[in-house]
């Protein structure tokens, strides 16, 4: 059964006299807020009320007692509560109510007088002090207050008289302070300065001396006293803090008058901070604000950083200061201007970014930020601001149509935004959206439309590309360039027939068009390869011949056709085709190596060796020798491959050595590969790349990212190599770009599933895992290329 919720009693359920008693107890425990709350609850219930028929109600005696005790209790609670209120007006309100409830309570009246004095009601303050003095004529505190009231209302002589009646034996520190004050008020500043010598408290002595000197016009003496801060070995009491804050405030004014703005600001800030930390209404917020504003207004052009600090402090002392808020924005721009002038672009950017928060559509800010961020290589952030500027300008396009150069600038901006979005690999759809927004603005911009088509193609949306290309075609008429692009779009969308037809039309229109020719040849080459893979030899040959009809010397077609002829044992025809390649490129070692590779894959080792020999005669560079080794590796002749690799390694640089290592790794020759990595480390000891490759070799290749390190014992070595790679990449600016990759490898290796150790598979058995397969997360950076092994035919 659900437990019934216990209801708290409402005031009408709790006996009133009990609540009053509780409040009294709470007050004596110092729980002022709780007591005040309870007293406010019973307040309406204790008011004498007539019955509904107007007859007098007989009140029970315990209620009568509660009614009698209530006003003084509430007055006490309000008095205690008033000291928790920082706002002087609120404090004054609470004390006024306390005095109304308990007029004989002299402390409330005295404090109310102080509040009135601090809020500018000097006459009211004097009346309170006078009343208090009448109630307790011989109380020293009240006499002091009365004298203060007289001073505040301009009756310095009477105040002096009150002080004179003070018994000599009880003339203490406060008496001397008031005496000095009376003298200051009567224009006897020199006497006041002398009186300061009787003050024992260093806080009071320095303050009275310095202010008396100031009033006497002796600024130098005042300055000297103001500059001396009292030596203390304790945290200042509230009274000491009040005096110190006043001294600092005057220090600030003197510095301000002398044009020492920084010192003036420092003093003012310390004064404000002391007043805040001790909850003192001194110096008043208005005075602090006036000081901050005065310094800031003068510093904004010469020292905008100082102006910023001043207005920030002004806001701290008064968060509702709208002028400080507005000027702060202007000062930030001034600071940004000087930072920019001094070449401190990062600082300028930070300030402009702050300013942009309040003015998000400020054209100058957006442009300054975009340009500067781009300069700082923070291109992703630059894109955001460029895009915002483009949006803004698009919205203004109609209004600003007549502005010279506006449209040109906008179009240039659109182009730049798109280029930068592509360069920074922004979201595909965002790029398309940006392009489409740009084309709306300039529908006849065919260049832009072609770019949209290109983007659609790049993002695998050929049908949308075709639509854009058709729009351009409609406007500009048919051209080989356009047709080639359209054909490519058809090819990507697997519409082979339409692609072929369109390519044919492009070639027919302009037989020598380079774009049309190149794309068509590539397209036909793909078809030939596909037919070959499906063992449709005749069809593959047809495509090759088609390629040769477009370009009779097209080497890839000649070589492919030769391989097909070898397949059909038409060796003579094949030899002839390969000879044509050589005839067309007699000095190309690359063609020699490639043709040697073809012979090698058909067990024609002699012919292969002859071509390799010739290749080395043409160029004995490590690159050429390595390529020959790679051909042997591709047909699994690893011993011969290694022989060439070692020969190449004698003169090879780091890149080539790593290429050989990776080639060996991808053929399962890890041990041999590692030797080449070590050679690469020797060749480039400061470079992080060989260590990255070595780490991944130890990890067991790319599969380690999915299944964890192949051999757990190697984990330490993997980490060691990644550590070294990170150290080297951090050491030199030009290698810093490797850092994200190193960290990514580390993260992925840590997150990889260690299930691999449970799989009864060798590393080479994991080849079925395609690196680009979406099921295994985002594609990994290419590491060990999984080059398809050439099949011996």
């Amino acid at each position, binding site marked *: 059964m659900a437990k019934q919720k216990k209801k708290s009693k409402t005031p009408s359920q709790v006996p009133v006299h009990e609540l009053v008693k509780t409040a009294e107890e709470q007050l004596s425990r110092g729980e002022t807020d709780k007591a005040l709350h309870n007293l406010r609850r019973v307040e309406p219930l204790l008011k004498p009320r007539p019955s509904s028929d107007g007859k007098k109600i007989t009140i029970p005696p315990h209620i009568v007692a509660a009614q009698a005790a209530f006003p003084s209790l509430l007055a006490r609670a309000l*008095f*205690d509560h008033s000291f928790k209120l920082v706002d002087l007006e609120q404090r004054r309100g609470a004390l006024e109510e306390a005095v109304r409830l308990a007029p004989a309570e002299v*402390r409330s009246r*005295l*404090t109310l007088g*102080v*509040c009135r*004095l601090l809020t500018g009601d000097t006459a009211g*303050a004097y009346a309170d002090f006078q009343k208090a003095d009448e109630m307790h004529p011989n109380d020293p*505190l009240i006499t002091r*207050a009365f004298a*203060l009231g007289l001073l505040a209302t301009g009756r310095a002589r009477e105040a002096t008289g009150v002080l004179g009646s003070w018994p000599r034996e009880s003339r203490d520190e*406060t008496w001397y302070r*008031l005496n000095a*004050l009376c003298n*200051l008020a009567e224009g006897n500043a020199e006497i006041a300065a002398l009186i300061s010598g009787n003050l024992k408290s260093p806080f009071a002595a320095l303050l009275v001396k310095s*202010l008396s000197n*100031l*009033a006497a016009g002796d600024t130098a003496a005042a300055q000297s006293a103001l500059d001396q801060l009292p030596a203390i070995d304790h945290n200042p*009491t*509230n*009274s000491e803090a*009040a*005096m110190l804050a*006043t001294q600092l405030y*005057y220090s600030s*004014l003197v510095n*301000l008058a002398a044009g020492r703005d920084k010192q003036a600001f420092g003093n003012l800030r310390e004064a404000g901070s002391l007043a805040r930390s001790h909850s003192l*209404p*001194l*110096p*008043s917020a208005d*005075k602090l604000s*006036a*000081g901050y*504003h005065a310094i800031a*207004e003068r510093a*904004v052009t010469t020292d905008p950083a100082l102006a910023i600090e001043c207005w920030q402090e002004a806001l701290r002392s008064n968060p509702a200061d709208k*002028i400080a808020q*507005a*000027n702060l924005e*202007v*000062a930030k*721009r001034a600071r*940004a*201007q000087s930072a*920019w002038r001094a070449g401190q672009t990062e600082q*300028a950017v930070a300030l402009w970014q702050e300013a942009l928060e309040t003015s998000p559509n400020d054209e100058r800010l957006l*442009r*300054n930020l975009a*340009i*500067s961020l*781009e*300069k700082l290589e923070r291109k992703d952030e630059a894109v955001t601001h460029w895009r915002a500027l483009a949006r803004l300008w698009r919205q203004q396009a109609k209004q600003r149509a007549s502005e010279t*150069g506006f449209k*040109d*600038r906008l179009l*240039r*901006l659109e182009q*730049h935004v798109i280029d930068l979005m592509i360069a920074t690999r922004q979201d595909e759809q965002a790029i398309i959206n940006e392009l489409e927004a740009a084309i709306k603005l300039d529908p006849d911009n065919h260049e832009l439309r072609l770019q949209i088509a290109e983007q659609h193609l790049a993002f695998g949306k050929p049908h949308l590309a075709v639509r854009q290309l058709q729009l351009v075609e409609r406007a500009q008429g048919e051209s080989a360039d356009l047709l080639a692009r359209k054909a490519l779009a058809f090819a990507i969308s697997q519409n082979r027939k339409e692609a072929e037809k369109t390519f044919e039309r492009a070639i027919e229109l302009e037989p020598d068009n380079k774009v049309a020719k190149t794309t068509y040849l590539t397209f036909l080459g793909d078809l030939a390869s596909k037919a070959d893979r499906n063992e449709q030899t005749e069809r593959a040959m047809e495509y090759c011949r088609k390629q040769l009809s477009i370009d009779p010397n097209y080497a890839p077609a000649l070589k492919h056709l030769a391989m097909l002829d070898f397949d059909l044992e038409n060796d003579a025809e094949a030899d002839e085709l390969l000879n044509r390649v050589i005839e067309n490129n007699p000095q190309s070692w690359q063609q020699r190596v490639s043709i040697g590779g073809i012979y090698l894959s058909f067990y024609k080792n002699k012919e292969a060796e002859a071509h390799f020999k010739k290749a080395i005669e043409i160029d004995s560079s490590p690159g050429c020798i390595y390529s020959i080794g790679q051909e042997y590796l591709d047909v699994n002749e690893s011993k011969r491959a290694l022989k060439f690799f070692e020969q190449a390694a004698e003169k090879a640089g780091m890149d080539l050595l790593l290429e050989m290592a990776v080639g060996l790794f991808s053929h399962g020759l890890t041990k041999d590969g590692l030797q080449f990595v070590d050679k690469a480390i020797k060749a480039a000891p400061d470079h992080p790349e060989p260590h990255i490759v070595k780490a991944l070799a130890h990890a067991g290749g790319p599969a380690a990212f999915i299944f964890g390190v192949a051999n757990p014992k190697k984990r330490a070595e993997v980490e060691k190599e990644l550590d070294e790679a990170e150290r080297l990449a951090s050491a030199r600016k030009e290698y810093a770009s490797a850092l994200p990759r190193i960290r990514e490898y580390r993260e992925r290796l840590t997150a990889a599933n260690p299930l691999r150790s449970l799989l009864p598979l060798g590393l080479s058995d994991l080849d079925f895992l395609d690196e680009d397969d979406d099921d295994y997360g985002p594609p990994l950076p290419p590491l060990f290329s999984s080059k398809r092994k050439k099949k011996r035919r």
Partner: protein
Amino acid sequence: MNAENLLTAENPYETLGLERGADEAEIKQAYFNLVREHPPERDPEGFKRIRAAYEKLRAAGERAETDLFLIDERDVAFNAGQLQRYAGQPPAITPETIKSDLIALEAVLLMEEVIVGR
């Protein structure tokens, strides 16, 4: 010229001694005046700079690109006219303010004593 080059290039308006809002005729005039002062045969380097600056401004497309990527004083300058003056009295040191501040201080000290003694 691409954006990257523009980010580091010198300000063509400054080179030609022009305001950012100069019109086509002013640009042309400034260019010819400067070329007269720095003919290629006498000052090939100076001429090269002047010519390069002119190239960046002569045609609408180039000028649009220049204007888009150029930050100069005009772009970073803050607008002092936007500064608002504080309405309150600026702080001053007079015997009167000293007196009233000391009275206020005495009032605070008095209140502190009441608080401590309550």
